[in-house]
């Protein structure tokens, strides 16, 4: 059952991710991003990290992708024209894809050695564990992240505010 | 001041016992002598005599006859016509009728003299249609005169020809208006012509220069031709030369026609002494001095002003009785000498009913050509009729005056004035009677006179 779901979500996520890259229309791209994120959230759920799955949905789905969509619509640009691939790009892409394939294949032999998930207790859903970790081991990063968020908030406010004086210089 | 004696010039022989209207009788009394005398003179001299005489037309307007003759267009080469206006139809006037009935040859002689003076080859006597008897008398008289070669070709061998025709009118008051008369004579409706351009002296009968004179005027011309213009001015008063015939009718003891020197007699003398005063037990209330279209005068009213006597201006303060009966004096007090028809009313007369009668006449006689007189006369008649028939309103007096004020001076002929002046003057003098008429009517019995209206 979970394999089936894994397969489904995995394919769904990848297809949607490819959609983000290849879609000409930025709206489609952002919608694909959203779907891709939902797929990832499903994978999170398969990994029994329910909390993270919903946080992902909440943050990414509810806010980030929506902001993307919002900006796309606000700037009203339909993705723009994709320049024709140059030969160098094609060659580089092929090489890169080959490298990726090699990397993927290189992972295969180790398959048997890895622990089976069934043995591991589901810990991703436990709110308490997160809290415990965050406020003990990772207290400093939490503070830093908080500070980062504050800085980002200020930055956004500064960026999006129109400064008449500055505009006038131009 | 006692009344002066009558000075009969026109009526010299009329009413004389034994005086008939045939040629023989006329010749016996010196008829056609003046004509013969005149033929010896130049026409221009005759015109000058008339001009000198200051003779004023006796038709009503008092326009100087000599001036009228002087206006005639003699250069056009068109024939000049003379028309004797015998369409005497002004209520209260009956002088011309007597001249024609009793002394037609006097008229014919005067006409021929006038024709000779103005080089007229054809003259018409336009006699009112309602006077068939007069017309017959005139026709007979003309036939007699023609037989005696006083009328017709080569009169008395003078190489001067003149024809006189009698034309019976269509029986309309408006035919007395000179242009209406001309139209009627031409065979059309007697619609007065517009002046300008149709002055009779220029574009009269058949678009030719035409002289239109009253019967009495032409008789005076005969007298002037006889005695000369200078002598004529001695008769009467300066500016009002000659005699005037007054046709007195109404509530006096002795109505009738009286000939006096113009301006020598006052209204009071005429009415009280000559005509014998009011009927027993009554008093005079009002008098219309010159035919029904003249403005009425109220007894007891004072007229004040200044008048010129010779070179001096002297004040006058007249009652009705003190007014000298001449054109200028009557004009001064706001009425007119007119045709000499003096209509007297005493205190039994209700002025509304009197006016209703007059209005009925004028609305009936309006020719209907131009708007103010046509509609105004009928409207005034309808108002007064309605009042008399018991439907009077307090505001009718003001309405009547307003309607009457819209007529005079705005019409083609003088009929506008003629029909509006009575109303204007009646209301001006007897406004109280008009205002109180609604109440009067409620109390008084319907007057017999209203049946006429």
């Amino acid at each position: 059952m979970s394999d089936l779901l894994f397969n489904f979500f995995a394919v769904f996520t990848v297809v949607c991710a490819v959609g983000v890259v290849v879609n000409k229309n930025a709206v489609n791209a952002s919608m694909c991003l959203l779907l891709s994120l939902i797929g990832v959230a499903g994978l999170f759920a398969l990994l029994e990290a329910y909390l993270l799955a919903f946080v992902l949905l909440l943050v990414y789905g509810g806010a980030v992708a929506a902001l993307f969509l919002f900006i796309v619509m606000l700037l009203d640009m339909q993705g723009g024209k994709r320049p024709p691939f140059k030969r160098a790009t094609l060659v580089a892409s092929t090489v890169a894809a080959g490298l990726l394939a090699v990397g993927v294949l290189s992972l295969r032999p180790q398959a048997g050695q890895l622990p089976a998930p069934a043995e591991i207790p589901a810990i991703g859903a436990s709110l308490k564990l997160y809290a415990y970790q965050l406020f003990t081991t990772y207290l400093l990063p939490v503070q830093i992240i908080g500070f980062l968020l504050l800085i980002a908030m200020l930055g956004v406010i500064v960026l999006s505010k129109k400064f008449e004086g500055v505009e006038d210089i131009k | 001041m006692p009344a002066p004696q009558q000075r009969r010039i026109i009526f010299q022989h009329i009413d004389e016992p034994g005086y008939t209207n045939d040629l023989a009788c006329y010749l016996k009394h010196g008829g056609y002598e003046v004509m013969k005398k005149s033929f010896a003179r130049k026409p221009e001299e005759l015109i000058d005599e008339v001009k000198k005489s200051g003779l004023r037309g006796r038709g009503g307007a008092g326009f100087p006859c000599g001036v009228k003759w002087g206006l005639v267009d003699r250069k056009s080469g068109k024939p000049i016509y003379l028309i004797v206006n015998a369409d005497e139809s002004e209520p209260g006037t009956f002088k011309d009728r007597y001249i024609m009935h009793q002394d037609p040859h006097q008229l014919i002689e005067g006409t021929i003299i006038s024709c000779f003076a103005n080089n007229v080859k054809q003259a018409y006597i336009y006699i009112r249609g309602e006077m068939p008897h007069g017309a017959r008398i005139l026709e007979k008289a003309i036939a007699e005169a023609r037989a005696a070669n006083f009328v017709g070709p080569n009169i008395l061998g003078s190489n001067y020809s003149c024809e006189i025709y009698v034309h019976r009118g269509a029986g309309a008051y408006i035919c007395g208006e000179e242009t209406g008369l001309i139209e009627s004579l031409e065979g059309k409706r007697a619609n007065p012509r517009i002046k300008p351009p149709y002055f009779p002296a220029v574009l009269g009968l058949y678009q030719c220069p035409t002289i239109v004179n009253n019967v009495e005027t032409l008789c005076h011309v005969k007298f002037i031709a006889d005695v000369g213009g200078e002598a004529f001015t001695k008769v009467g008063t300066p500016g009002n030369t000659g005699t005037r015939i007054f046709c007195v009718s109404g509530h006096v003891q002795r109505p009738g026609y009286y000939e006096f020197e113009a301006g020598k007699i006052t209204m009071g003398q005429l009415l009280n002494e000559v005509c014998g005063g009011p009927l027993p037990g009554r008093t005079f209330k009002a008098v219309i001095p010159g035919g029904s279209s003249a403005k009425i005068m109220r007894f007891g009213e004072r007229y004040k002003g200044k008048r010129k006597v010779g070179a001096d201006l002297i004040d006058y303060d007249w009652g009705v009785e003190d007014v000298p009966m001449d054109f200028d004096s009557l004009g001064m007090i706001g009425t007119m000498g007119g045709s000499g028809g003096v209509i007297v009313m005493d205190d039994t007369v209700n002025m509304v009913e009197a006016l209703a009668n007059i209005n009925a006449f004028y609305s009936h006689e309006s020719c209907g050509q131009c708007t103010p007189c046509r509609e105004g006369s009928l409207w005034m008649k309808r108002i007064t009729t309605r009042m008399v028939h018991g439907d009077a309103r307090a505001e009718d007096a003001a309405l009547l005056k307003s309607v009457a004020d819209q007529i005079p001076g705005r019409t083609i002929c003088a009929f506008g004035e003629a029909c509006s002046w009575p109303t204007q003057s009646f209301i001006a003098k007897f406004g109280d009677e008009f205002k109180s008429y609604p109440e009067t009517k409620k109390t008084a019995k319907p007057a017999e006179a209203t049946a006429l209206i």
Partner: protein
Amino acid sequence: MIAPAKPDLVTVNIDGKEVAVPKGTNVIEAARLVGVDVPHYCYHPKLTVAGNCRMCLIEMGMPAVDPATKTPIMDPATGKQKINWIPRPQIGCGTNASPGLHVRTNTPLVRDCQQGVMEFLLINHPLDCPICDQAGECKLQEQATDYGRGYSRYIEQKNVKPKRTQLGPRVTLDDERCILCSRCVRFSKEIAKDDVLGFIDRGSYSTLTCFPGKTLSNNYSLNTVDICPVGALTSTDFRFKMRVWFLKQTFSLDAESSVGANTTVWSREGVIYRVTPRRNDEVNDTWMSDSGRLLFKQVKADNRLAGIKVNGTESALDIAVNAAAQLLKAGSVAVVGSGRSTVEEQFLTKKLAAALGASVSLVSRVGQGDKLLISADRNPNVRGALVTGLIAALPAAQLTTLAADVDAGKIKTIISVGEDLAAAGLTAAQLAQISIVYLGTHANATSAAAKVTFPTLTSFEKSGTFVNQQFRIQKFVRAVPGSAGANDDLLVLSKLIAAVSEGRALSPRAPFETSFDLASLWTQLAAEVPALGTMNFANIPDTGLLLDATSWLALPFVEGETLHYKPAAPQPAPAKEPASPPTSTPA
């Protein structure tokens, strides 16, 4: 008729405005020049002055002159010559301009007079505007609003007079509405020379009527309706049909004869209700004939051709044009043009004839001229055919030559532009013998015999120009849309020309191009017809334009004398200008 080289002008002062007018102009006309409207009823510019309505009362004065010394008396207040104002008001219509005449039209006295006259006119007027056909163009209405007092003081009963009197076959009289202006009487006497109208009774009871035993039946009787300032005289035909304020006015022409009387067509929503004359002092003054007024009935006539027919079956325009072109291309063609066609159509007819190499004949219609507004030549536009070069000589009444040619077999096909060949002298047998292409408005023997029939438009449904007997080119404008199925003659002709001249170069510009819209057609006309010079349709003034007629003066025209026309005796060239009134130039 020749205007003086220098009309002596006199300067008059109207309401303080100086204006120079020809001597003899009356005050109403002079006031009009300075934009002052003097109200009037009885005055009509083309009739004698009666002066009886008393509406045009004005105050008049002359500069004061000392009678003794003949020197002007100056007014110390203004420093100008003193004006002696006549205390009585004078009528404007009867007062002619004289040097120094002063006129006041808006003094209290004048206004009082106008108000008084308006009141008098209205007291015995029935005031039945709701059922009166004159409402909307009634001077009494207009001037009552402008000069009347606005309410009635008249409580007495109004006069009763005859109503619905039939004065004649076309004129109905309502005497109660009559204001006795006598315009109709004067018109009948002076213009129509048919003195049948007069007043009976006196005063306010005066009643307009016909003389006993007579009727107002002359061919100009409806002009009395036009000039009647109130609704007393109404047209029996137009009576109770439509209110005039709904009607659209279109300038048109009377196509009845070569006089070319100017008319106004009154229509609403594509339906013509009446035709009235339009003032043109050089042609018809303000009159037109009764017969010309009835011409609009042809628009909705029963025998109007409805659809394009090819051999008796309904067809489409292009198919029919091709069918006609087949017939015409076969050769042995004769073209029958018409003196009733417009100049433009005649021009295209000429082009068509040139394209076909065919002869052109016209049919003349000669009747009795009435010396007023119907001339002997009942074709309105024979001179147009001369001007455009469609014909060089005057047409004959019968197409005898053509008939002979048909009999001789020289002619196989005839295209007739609006002429009934049967009426023009071709027998039924001859008609049956040939192929006919017919352009026309109404059914007749020719349309019945025609192989191809194009229904076309009447003069009320199209725009165009006529050249009248004075060689005056006058235009008329479409008043109503064309009836269903009918096409503009110009469209049909231009399509025919295009169809027959396919592949053939017949004029310097090849292939032949033509168009049926007037503007572009006129650029062509102006270029190719010398007499039309630099004209175009738009700049022909409403009163028409005199053309140079020198080339055709020698032709024996049939017209006799009419209102503003004296026929010039045929004389050899070089001829003088024809005796005609001075050209009115466009403003």
